[in-house]
């Protein structure tokens, strides 16, 4: 093989490898983030909120209430009726609680859910178990409940306590809440809570909360505010809807939206991130594409040179009976081969590079079990191979047509 041809192939190798590596980095970023997101907080849980805009409307409309827009117990029942919904629970929050563990004070908030459907919700305990439907005073701890924040200068540091949440399983903890009464005096209420389990990381509020029964949380809330909650008129601030599997998420979401509630789901975030990553890939792929474009110019140049050099040969072939298409196909095949070989070598090199990138990134970032910065999908490999062959083919077309149209007699006379 001619040195010139080898250089041209190297050009294609660099072009193909840069496309693959660039896109693989986009892929890797997407993969690690989506993996993380779908790992935390179940993809099959939707967060439903009262539609804030419709609430505003009713307020301005002079107290005219729109039943549909209020997230009360009727609405919870309606949500439950939607196809694909497994469980619905209202969420009642309480903040400002304090617990003392091992003579350390921890500020906590409670997240009250319906224990009657707790079994059907996708909450997974890493240790211990979920409370039963009637264990009103039992709770599950979020995994970071005992983590306190300390502020050192500019950075926030997470400091895990000596006591792990798991250590508290089976024990009673005492939570205190405070309120200021009408006379400006501080009143304190204590509540005993029995820890039955620790929740797996969800990535949501649960991690820093204590999961409790919403009846209990409602009672504590009423004591703290000194007012009776009017759920029927004002609704819950939030409800959690658990659906069968991820395939029904979009259908359920639109049905809930039709009920004039606001819905958040991990699926929506993943969907919108998908388009962001697609743009990122196009951008990175485009940068790689520039390298392949340069390689393409290289192929055209090499083929043109080769045709100049082989003009006489082309003339001879035409005289002894090569047709126009014979000559054309011969040169197109040659340039396609350059593209294909370059593509193949480029793929091998980028596979090696991808492993190296992940290895080196792993050294710097650390983290358990390998880091995915660059992720090469089989589709990407097939695409790269196809694309490099196509680039070779297209680059060869013009020189090949030029070669095929040489006059045989002029060509044979040239030296």
């Amino acid at each position, binding site marked *: 093989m001619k040195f010139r041809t080898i250089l041209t192939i190297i050009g294609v190798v660099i072009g193909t490898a840069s496309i693959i590596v660039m896109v693989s980095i986009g892929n890797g970023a997407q993969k690690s983030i989506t993996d993380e997101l779908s790992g935390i907080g179940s993809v099959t849980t939707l967060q439903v909120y009262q539609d804030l805009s419709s609430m505003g409307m009713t307020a301005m409309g002079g107290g005219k209430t729109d039943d549909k827009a209020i997230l009360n117990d009727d609405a919870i029942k309606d949500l439950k009726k939607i196809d694909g919904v497994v469980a619905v629970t209202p969420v009642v929050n309480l903040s400002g609680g304090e617990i003392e563990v091992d003579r350390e004070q921890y500020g906590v908030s409670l997240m009250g859910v319906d224990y009657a459907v707790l079994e059907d919700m996708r909450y997974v305990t890493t240790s211990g178990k979920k409370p039963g439907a009637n264990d009103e005073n039992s709770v599950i701890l979020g995994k970071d409940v005992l983590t306190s924040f300390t502020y050192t200068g500019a950075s926030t540091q997470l400091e895990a306590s000596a006591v792990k949440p798991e250590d508290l399983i089976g024990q009673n903890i005492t939570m205190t809440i405070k309120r200021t009464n009408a006379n400006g005096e501080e009143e304190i209420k204590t509540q005993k809570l029995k820890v039955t389990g620790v929740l797996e990381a969800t990535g949501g509020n649960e991690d820093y909360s204590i999961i409790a029964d919403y009846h209990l949380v409602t009672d504590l809330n009423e004591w703290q505010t000194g007012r009776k909650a009017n759920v029927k008129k004002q609704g819950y601030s939030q409800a959690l809807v658990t659906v069968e599997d991820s395939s029904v998420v979009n259908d359920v979401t639109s049905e809930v939206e039709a009920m004039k509630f606001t819905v958040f789901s991990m699926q929506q975030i993943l969907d919108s991130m998908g388009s962001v990553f697609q743009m990122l890939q196009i951008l990175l792929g485009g940068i790689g594409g520039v390298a392949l474009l340069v390689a393409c110019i290289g192929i055209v140049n090499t083929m043109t040179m080769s045709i100049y050099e082989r003009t*006489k040969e082309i*003339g001879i072939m035409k*005289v002894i*009976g*090569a*047709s*126009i298409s*014979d000559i054309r196909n011969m040169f197109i095949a040659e340039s396609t081969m350059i593209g294909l070989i370059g593509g193949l070598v480029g793929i091998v090199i980028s596979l090696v590079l991808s492993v190296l990138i992940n290895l080196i990134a792993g050294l710097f970032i650390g983290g358990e079990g390998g880091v995915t910065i660059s992720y090469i999908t089989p589709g990407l490999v097939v695409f790269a191979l196809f694309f490099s062959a196509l680039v070779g083919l297209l680059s060869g077309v013009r020189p090949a047509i030029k070669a095929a149209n040489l006059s045989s007699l002029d060509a044979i006379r040239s030296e």
Partner: protein
Amino acid sequence: MHKDFKLGKEDIHILKGIDLDIEQGEMVALLGPSGSGKSTFLNVLGGLVPPTSGDIMIRDYRISDMTENELCLFRREHLGFIFQSYNLISTMTAMENVALALTFAGVKKEIRQQRAQEALEVVGLVDRMGHKPSELSGGQQQRVSIARALVNHPEIILADEPTGNLDSKTSADIMEMITRLNREEKQTFVIVTHDPDTTKYCTKVIHMCDGLIEAEVNQ
């Protein structure tokens, strides 16, 4: 038949009305001074350049009306060419050069090699079939190019000064071989030559001068 060439804006008249019949199996010598248009005539005959006016008929085929692609197919099946400068492909062996003509005709590889070998046998070069042109003498190279012209079993072989670069002994060998082929295979030869010795092998001698046929002698 006429042939003009454009030189700048001017048309120069090279072949000025040639009217010639060649019978199958004839061995024709084209003789004439340099610049008289012998090569041009041969090239028009082989469809390598189109005539400006007039017709060329080979059997029932009207060469002068064929498209470039039709000419390629026609050459592949009916015509063989031999050049003064051999025109072998330098990167290919003798065998590959001969077999190349069959490649374009779509002949299978084994048959290609077998027939190329047969053609090289005819010209007495089987023992050199693995050699590149640069490893062969002028006479041997010319014999490879003759083998290439023969391999398709064409009815007509057009040769432009086939012995032009060879010494008299080798020229005689080549001409004897061509005569043998002409006699055995009934192939028609049209041979352009400067060498009066060559003409004694031919059945017909045509003298050209200044783009016209001056004399036509049957031997």
